């Protein structure tokens, strides 16, 4: 009897202390994430709701708050008729063509730098340099290199006998490929590093066995490397698609969307509409179209990655 009550007492004590520990854990947990939580609530939660609200108004920086009107879906309707927006979407599609080039190059470079060459570490460092360089500095440098009149690239082309080299960033035809080239130059090293991480996961024995069977380097690359890297390839493809829709600083610095509308992208047009043309509501509606596009790609990504696990 006595021992029984004692036991029971003990149990309640433990339960009580467990409860108080849990409360203490809760307080501690929320204290630790307080800065995160404030940032999340203010900038993300409120931001998302507020930008959705903006997209249904004619919000503008120069208007007084009381003059801002709720205009329903008319921003979205206007988008469908806006030729600049059409051009931006088409240009974004064009820039998607850069992705296969970028990814294939990164794959080949990772394959080489992994163990096919001397000075592996040196090459890795060099490939990574553009990624840690300011996009403004990169733009300034390439801007002079691509200078149509006296830039070294066109001087070089002239010595090759091309008397009429491209006008690069000043030409509606060549501006997009030039920007695309810059995207590749800036990103390929970073993707190479990510591929290298994935290559470390491929067992060496596979390559050794293939070598014994007399497979050439090229056969090994296409037969082993490419198939086994496909999860990374998939992830990088989705990442590139999202970045191409989102990134706008390179274009803002290099061309400001020009010449004409030839390098306008959705990401840049949002900035331009909101801060240059004072059409924040309109820009917000564009941002929501962008979000939908990115959501579609994210859903695809999760679907495929889930299927792969089973």
């Amino acid at each position: 009897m006595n021992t029984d009550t004692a036991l029971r007492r003990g149990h309640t004590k433990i339960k009580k202390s467990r409860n108080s520990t849990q409360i203490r854990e809760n307080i501690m947990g929320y204290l630790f994430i307080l800065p995160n939580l404030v940032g999340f609530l203010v900038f993300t939660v409120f931001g998302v709701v507020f930008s959705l609200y903006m997209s249904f108004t004619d919000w503008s920086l120069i208007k007084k708050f009381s003059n801002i009107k709720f205009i329903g879906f008319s921003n979205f309707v206007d988008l469908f008729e806006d030729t600049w927006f059409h051009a931006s979407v088409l240009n974004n599609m064009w820039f998607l063509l850069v992705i296969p080039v970028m990814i294939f190059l990164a794959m080949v470079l990772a394959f080489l730098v992994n163990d096919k060459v001397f000075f592996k570490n040196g090459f890795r460092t060099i490939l990574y340099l553009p990624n840690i360089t300011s996009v403004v500095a990169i733009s300034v440098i390439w801007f002079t290199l691509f200078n149509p009149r006296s830039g070294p690239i066109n001087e070089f082309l002239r010595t090759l006998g091309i008397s009429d080299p491209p006008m690069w960033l000043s030409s509606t035809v060549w501006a997009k490929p030039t920007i695309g080239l810059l995207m590749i130059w800036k990103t390929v090293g970073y993707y190479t590093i990510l591929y290298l991480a994935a290559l470390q996961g491929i067992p060496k024995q596979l390559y050794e066995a293939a070598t014994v069977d007399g497979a050439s380097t090229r056969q090994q690359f296409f037969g082993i490397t490419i198939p086994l890297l496909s999860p990374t390839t998939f992830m990088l493809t989705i990442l590139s698609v999202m970045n191409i829709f989102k990134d706008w600083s390179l274009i803002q610095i290099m061309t400001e969307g020009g010449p004409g509308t030839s390098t306008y992208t959705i990401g840049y047009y949002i900035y331009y509409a909101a801060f240059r043309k004072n059409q924040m509501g309109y820009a917000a509606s564009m941002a929501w179209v962008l979000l939908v596009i990115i959501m579609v790609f994210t859903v695809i990504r999760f679907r495929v990655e889930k299927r792969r696990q089973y």
Partner: protein
Amino acid sequence: MQITTVGQGRNYQRNRFIKKILLTLLMVLVSFTMLLPFIWMISSSFKDSISMFKFPIEWIPKEFNFSGYRDVWQGDIKFSLFFINSIKITFLAVLGTMVSCTMGGYAYAKIKFAGRDSLFLIKLSTMMIPTQITMLPTFMIFKWLGLINTHAALWLPFFLGQPFGTFLMRQYFLKVPEELLDSAKMDGADHFKIFWSIALPLVRAGLSVLVFLYFVWAWNYYEGPLLYIRSTELYTLPLALKFFSDEFSTNYTAIMAASVSMTVPVLVLFIFLQRFFIEDITSTGLKG
């Protein structure tokens, strides 16, 4: 029989060696295209605007011309001020990231508070929201708070937890063995003490990756200053460089000297520390 196999082996070895040299040469070529713009930048910063566009290119200038650096550092354009501004913003941004991301990462990994996992999942899934969505509301919030045209608009967000950094630090804290924390708890230590004296020293590798990534990020941060900063004396280096290249578009030497002054410190730092970082950056995966 034996001799032929040995011979074949030697042949094979030699072929492999030759192939490795050829592939190395190919990589040298690739590296050259990666490095060429940097070499061009450094070499042009020491030339005048005429010899800069001379062709064939004088990679090593015949006459070193320091007028670009003089214009940048001693001219009317207050480059040293932009440098100080950039150092200030970068320092505060990295400090803020260190505080908020390590604390958040620790909480999400090691404190069992109610609602933790769903909160973390929500935070993680918001990483895919494009910045364009929150860019406009953030601008309005800063406007209401009176932060437009102040440096606070640039560093404040870093104190409020960057999702990527928090996620990164959580991964590192997860690897800290639970038993270590439990024995500390037995001794009566609370989470602040455990975090500070046990967990944090164990994730130094993660912390250095965090610091490096956000250092580079904050140093090169361009969109924020472009949106929020109006007065020239508050410019940071990226915005100042953009401003130069628009205003003084003919003084290429000065523009190049400014680019060198801005990028070379980061590049040198990276080259010295890369052995330490590349592995960790590789293993942690993504940062756009």
